[in-house]
């Protein structure tokens, strides 16, 4: 069912496992910051972080002997797809909930609820329009 980690791979196991979560967070952070600040130039960095996450997952899978069965391979696939898509899904949800919140609250200061753009990187098509902007 499981093949334990080799003694020589202990450190690599801990390092690669920590890297999965940390680079997952860096990817999510850069992805969201690039969007919220309208800085598309950061997006390649975000996907670079995902690439490191990808390598970390593969390394972890190798040292923990996950490639030996279809079940554990499915875990690797779910992790890779999940970490890739979750920030996209959450971003859409953020935009949607904040936009809906504007429409429901007529006295709200609408500028308050819009992501604050920074001064550079003004590619209009880059920022996902919320419902309010779209209308």
């Amino acid at each position, binding site marked *: 069912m499981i093949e334990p*980690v080799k003694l020589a791979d*202990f450190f690599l196991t801990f390092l690669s496992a920590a890297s999965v979560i940390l680079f997952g*967070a860096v990817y999510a952070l850069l992805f969201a910051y690039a969007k*919220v600040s309208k800085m598309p130039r950061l997006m390649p960095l975000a996907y670079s972080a995902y690439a490191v996450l990808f390598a970390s997952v593969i390394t972890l899978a190798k040292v923990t002997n996950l490639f030996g069965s279809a079940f*554990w391979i499915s875990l690797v696939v779910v992790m890779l797809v999940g970490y890739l898509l*979750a920030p996209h899904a959450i971003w859409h*949800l953020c935009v949607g909930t904040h936009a809906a919140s504007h429409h429901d*609250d007529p006295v709200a200061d609408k500028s308050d609820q819009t992501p604050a753009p920074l001064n550079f990187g003004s590619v209009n098509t880059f920022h996902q329009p919320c419902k309010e902007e779209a209308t």
Partner: protein
Amino acid sequence: MTALRALDSANLNGGQKLAVKYFTVALALLGVQITFGLLAAVQFVMPDFLFGVVDFSIKRMVHINAMIVWMVFGFIGSVYWMLEEEAGAPTVGLKLGNIIFYVFTAAVLVVVAVYLLVQTGPGEIETQWFITEGREYTEAPRWADIGIVVCLLTFFYNVAATFSKGKVTGIGGVLLLDLVALAGIYTLGMFYTTNLTMDQYWWWWVIHMWVEATWEVMVGCMMAYGLMKVLGTSRKIVTTWLYLEVFMMFGSGILGIGHHYFWIGTPQYWLSIGGFFSALEPLPLVAMVVHAVYDAGVHKSRNNNHPAMGWLIAHAFGNFFGAGVFGFIHTLPQINLYTHGTQWSASHGHFAFYGAYATIIIAFFYIALQKWRGDVWMSGNLFGGWKWKWSMVLLNVGMLGMIMGMLVAGFAQSQIERAIGGATWTAFFAAQEHPWFVQGMHWRLAFGTMFAAGYALLVWDLLTIGKRETRPVQSHDDAALEAK
């Protein structure tokens, strides 16, 4: 000389008056937890310290039980704090709630006194009922177990009846369901079977489901309320996120219980179930980073209570690293075979409990104090503001230092005791004597002392913050202007 602002209960509603009582006991019990943690840490360095007076097992038991109880008191206090504002109605059965508070507090004192003065008993049913049940983390004697469930059900009655009388908000609805589970799941740890595996199976329901399900949901409700109060975030947004968080947490968290079933004699399929779902548990935490960045862009962290905001941020980071990173690095059975029950677990446990729970309860202490002092200023240039900042530094650095000390010790244990020595008795002592383990324990004691100093400063700050302030609380609009 300007008049000092006293803590005036006239500023509070009925539920909040009861809440501050719970907060006071919670803070005192945190002190008990730290004291017995330090005593246990000393014994790691000097093994004969207090030997025969208060043995290690007793110190550890009081340390962990005090933690569970102070956090439960903190959670109950937090719910009473937000209850009337959320429901829009006065607390129903407040008198009963007050009686239960005093009964609960007295019961805790009696249990701790028995732990320290009687300590152990013969393996008979009377010991289970009146001294200790003996199972770690749920050592409270049976009478106290029943008392805890009665207290939680009374607490549930207060909350449910108040929401019934007023309105049930999104936060209220989630809270009500959570409280049913909080009381119900505890009963699963109140029976024995002669089969040790089966016994452990249900015991883990209490430990895992309380901590990684009901407590996490409770914290989600507290965070939602805290963000509305401190940042002025809209109710609709926090409620949507609360639903999503509950959904994601239950999606991976419930079956994540399998990582406790790896080595207790349960069938092999738990290795697969536990490994799979535990590996996915950090995913929601990572996804939430997007939400945090989005909200920071929208609100720019404009807040009217800097200490509370600081602790809410500490909660977000602590939950991510303590529960997420430190949990994931040893959650797969392929590596957990070597790490479970070593200082790795202690390292993860300290980080996760502190990061996920202690921090947010401390944030609520500051939210409560702001109102208790009469909606006092707690923004920039706060009079005596160095105290909350330094207590935060000492507590956080102290905790991180302890975690790292235990991590190094755990690494030595997993290699020497488990992988090389094959988990024999001899290998256990070989690991305990290894310099990495010994030095790790010294560092734990040193940073534990720093943590205790941070606690002392925290208490001083909580007693005095806002006392000399003459300015009223900063409005969210003013905070927004200041941020621009």
